[in-house]
């Protein structure tokens, strides 16, 4: 295994409630990413981190926030969940930028009802 885990793996939540997804890595990789996967859209970048407390927005960041207080943990928060945020969320890590591959977690299936 690549040393990256996501929790929870499945979650059902109600519209308007806050939700936090956790990504934990044991590889001391600098870069971490949150993507969402939806049919017909592939993987779209939500937010990413290039170090502790260093984060930036991706292409679909509205309604999401992130935090990285430790190298190993990258949290994704939906402040007030909406049905449009029903998706499969993937976390990934990279040792360096540019020419290095990303390693992915197993995904979290989130359903907002």
């Amino acid at each position, binding site marked *: 295994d690549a040393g990256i885990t996501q929790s929870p793996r499945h979650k059902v939540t109600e519209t308007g409630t806050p939700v936090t997804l956790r990504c934990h890595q044991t590889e001391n990789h600098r870069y971490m990413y949150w993507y969402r996967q939806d049919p*017909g859209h592939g993987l779209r970048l939500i937010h990413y981190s290039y170090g502790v407390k260093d984060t930036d927005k991706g292409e679909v960041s509205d309604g999401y926030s992130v935090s990285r207080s430790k190298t190993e943990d990258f949290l994704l928060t939906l402040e007030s969940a909406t049905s449009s945020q029903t998706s499969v969320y993937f976390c990934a890590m990279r040792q360096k930028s540019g020419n290095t591959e990303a390693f992915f977690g197993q995904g979290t299936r989130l359903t907002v009802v």
Partner: protein
Amino acid sequence: AQSVTQLDSQVPVFEEAPVELRCNYSSSVSVYLFWYVQYPNQGLQLLLKYLSGSTLVKGINGFEAEFNKSQTSFHLRKPSVHISDTAEYFCAVSDDTQGAQKLVFGQGTRLTINP
């Protein structure tokens, strides 16, 4: 900013037939290119990558891809597919600029192998 287009959302083929999954990218700078595979209910894993050098790249499970700079393409091929190759395939690009951090994915191609 870079972008990736996978030209086919679904590709059905018969077992033992050859297959090509198409990927085109757009970038104003040099790029690194990747193909990932996602089996049902799993995360993504790397099939192969182009960083520099030979434009023909070989990966796992008998897959290969060819980087064509003039056509800005990175098509994935396999000469003879198996049922176990049924999966979704994603092309991704990362650029060569200093501090480049994003890995951008295409929309994915679902490969279905029929017996």
